[in-house]
């Protein structure tokens, strides 16, 4: 059973459509990330599930129970939805101690004193916050505040975790640490988790499924691997990956029984698919899939090294061909300097072909 179901949910703020007839289901135990640029509607989706925002249209179900329906006029308030929420700002109450912050939800539920103390202590212990009970949020580091926010969510034992960019206020090192923490938390609790972020690395590292959104519309819902390897449209292709995927406009031509992809600067191999021939296309290839050589091998396309950007273990190489600039990722060091000539190779099985007008993926098709 899907634990969260969203059916044709729309939400406008004034003239701006934040979410447009969205359908989405999160299966039990899944870690689903809503990923997209800021303003794409991902936070609004999360807030509507929590009950903090009311949709204009649509139905939301949590564990089979309808918590919102515009048609039937159902609205279940946030506290009765059985969800836990962690905000980007943590939203710790500054006038309460760590203990009081975590205990608040249980007090509201009327949990008795001894059980309350056990549960609060357990969840503080779990988040490695023993000894911090009497401190106020302002006396904690960013990472500790984050842990308190998580402890506060855990203590109420919600069946669903909602997290709104919980790591974006942390510095890079702590963020790595907390990613591990959150991943372990999900693995141990098996709680259905909906996670909102604009950071693709976070999405790809943590999730079992990624939902990419843009302008209030769901662009792709797939595993992290598939999202990266086979983006379903040009938006997703361009959004995921750093440096960004290489996009090459052109057309597929058929000459004397052979097919190839061509534009004014280069010719690439193309699959013998009928749907591709004669259309305006965009070929896409990830930076790590382009091979670089010095000598002109067969099929190599000559280009000029535009810049070399070493970044520790890997090097980003930019190569110019006509008005096209290719990003290439290589491990280790590169022997080429700026201004030198190199040859580029594009393996056919790494190239994705998109419809240039609609942006949809035409090849390879889904393998299922």
């Amino acid at each position, binding site marked *: 059973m899907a634990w969260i179901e969203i059916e044709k949910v729309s939400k406008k703020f004034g003239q701006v459509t934040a979410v447009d007839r969205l359908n989405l289901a999160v299966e039990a135990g899944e870690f689903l990330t809503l990923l997209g640029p800021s303003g794409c509607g991902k936070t609004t989706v999360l807030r509507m599930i*929590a009950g903090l925002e009311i949709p204009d249209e649509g139905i939301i179900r949590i564990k089979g129970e309808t918590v919102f329906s515009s048609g039937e006029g159902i609205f279940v308030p946030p*506290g009765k939805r059985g969800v836990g*929420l962690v905000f980007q700002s943590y939203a710790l*109450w500054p006038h309460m101690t760590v203990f009081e912050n975590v205990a608040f939800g249980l007090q509201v539920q009327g949990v008795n004193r001894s059980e309350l103390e056990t549960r609060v202590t357990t969840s503080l212990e779990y988040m490695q916050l023993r000894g911090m009970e009497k401190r106020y949020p302002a006396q904690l580091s960013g990472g500790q505040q984050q842990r308190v926010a998580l402890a506060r969510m855990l203590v109420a034992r919600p069946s669903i975790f909602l997290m709104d960019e919980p790591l974006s206020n942390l510095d890079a090192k702590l963020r790595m640490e907390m990613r591990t923490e959150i991943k372990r938390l999900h693995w141990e609790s098996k709680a259905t988790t909906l996670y909102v972020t604009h950071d693709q690395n976070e999405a790809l590292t943590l999730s079992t499924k990624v939902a990419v959104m843009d302008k209030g519309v769901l662009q792709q819902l797939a595993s992290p691997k598939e999202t990266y390897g086979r983006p379903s449209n040009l938006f997703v292709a361009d959004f995921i990956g750093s440096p960004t995927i290489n996009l090459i406009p052109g057309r597929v031509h058929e000459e004397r029984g052979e097919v190839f992809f061509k534009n004014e600067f280069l010719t690439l191999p193309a699959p013998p698919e009928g749907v591709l021939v004669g259309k305006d296309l965009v070929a896409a290839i990830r930076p790590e899939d382009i091979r670089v050589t010095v000598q002109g091998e067969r099929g190599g396309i000559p280009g000029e090294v535009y810049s070399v950007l070493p970044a520790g273990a890997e090097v980003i190489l930019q190569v110019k061909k006509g008005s096209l600039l290719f990003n290439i990722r290589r491990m280790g060091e590169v022997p080429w300097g700026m201004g030198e000539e190199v040859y580029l190779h594009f393996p056919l099985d790494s190239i994705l072909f998109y419809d240039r007008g609609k942006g949809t993926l035409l090849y390879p098709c889904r393998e299922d």
Partner: protein
Amino acid sequence: MTASWRTFHNRLRFNLTQPHLVMSLLLLVLLTALVIIPFIQMLHDTAVWQEADLRITRAAKPGEWTTFHYLRVFSSRLSKNIFYRPLWHSLETSLAISFLAMTLGALMAWLLVRTDMPFRRGIAVFAVIPYVLPSYTLALAWLDFFKNERIGGATGVYQYLFGVPTPDWLAYGFVPIVITLSLHYYPFTYLLVSGALVSIDAHLEESGEVLGASRLAILRRITFPIVLPALISSFILTFSRALGTFGTPYFLGAPVRYFTLATTIFSNITNRTPAVAYISALVLILISIFIIYANQKIIGSKSFVTIAGKGFHHRLTPLGKFRYPAMFLAAALILLAVFIPLFLLVWQTLMLYPNDYSLKNLTLHFWVGKSTPALAEGESGILRNLQILGAAWNSIELSVIVALLTGMTGIFIGYAAVKGRGTWLATLVEQGSFLPYLIPSIAFGAIYLSLFTNPIGPLPSLYGSFVLVVMVCMAKNLPFSARSGISSMLQVAGELEESAMVAGASWQKRFRKIILPLTLAGSISGFVLVFIATMRELSLIILLVTPNTRTLTTMTFRYVEQGYSQFADAIIVLIVLIVVSGEFLARRLGKRETV
């Protein structure tokens, strides 16, 4: 059900879980009762025959519509005396006061914030005090010094020293009104301009310097334009405050029949021609609205004041050989505006017989003396005087109640306005709560007088009741507490309440456990400031108090009228003590705001 109806229906259900909607509606009802209805009643009274009119003309038919009052005010034989001349006096004093106060305030701000003048810290401690004192403190001190035989009671120090009567132009009217009120209002400009000066990043000026601009050019081309909006604002707002003030123009103007609109409102009410007073009040309100509208138009988008972030640094302008002269100038201003007047007032209260400034004449009689028939018609010293102690109790009770009620209302307004941001209802509440700002104090009193003199429906007449005085003080202070409520609510990020919602806390619980504790901290200094404002209030309540509800300020007023300057001064000294301790308390509690 249609889609839009369903959307509306859902939204309604949702809003009931977030009760700022309900709260907004209640606040609108409150605003309507406190401001709108009284205003409409006042308009109505100007256009309807009053009982009191029977004394003036037989044509009067109480209760029927008439243009009589308007004609009488704007185009009759009396117009010049009852309207045009006071209007002119109001405008000329307000203009002169605004100009002088702005100049003094801006100069003080610059000296204290941006120069290397010695003793800046020490002087800054007192720079705002004149504004904290009741506005007519200086007027009473002025009378103690310059009073001549024209009004009853003893003559002033001037006459004692020089042996000749003070000329009228120096003792009463335009000159003293402008001087005393300028000294009272300059801190307003000082606060606004020093705020603007502090927020200028010295880098802005330094980049000018790097480009080769001279110091004067930097001051003129960079610093001045940045501060200009604050200057204009303070000029305009000082003008509107000066326009509505009653005490000083009355104490210093009435002896030579120099009336302003504010004082004619008072005398028309006491002379039982209320409709004339209401029309004058209406004119004051219109001028005030126009001024504030002009301020919005002129300043509008031009506020360059950037919120100070980290990394601001300031460089002080070296004054060179002017360092000490500048310091003496600033110190003299504080002496003239605070210490000398207070010294004079205290001295007066210690003099057994007026006009005898020798040490052997000193006495504590007017503070703690028992009643003797030989002195002041047998009134005992103020600390023994039941009437005065009663008034003191009234003042404190009034100020505490008003501070609490207004402060709480401010928090509710803040909640409704911030949670509903962007909806028309929230905008209405926010803007509505600023309406009282447009109504000068004395006009506010007149409005309330017109509405609550008679019973309204089942409500008894509130005139003479403590409730009425509380209501008017609350209404008048609402804009201030709304502003502080909104700003402290903005600090309490929406997510703090939302996480309590997700935890399942009811609205009452959220308000009690999260919102109130968090906003109270930011509001306490606001409470104290409303307390101060109410404690020294005269213009607002002078028309509404009766012997039962009199406060310290209105007692002062009565004693001045009767010529007992020792008592009047002693009470003022008492008010000053309370108010100044409140001010220092507020400073300790939080950030500086203006009332």
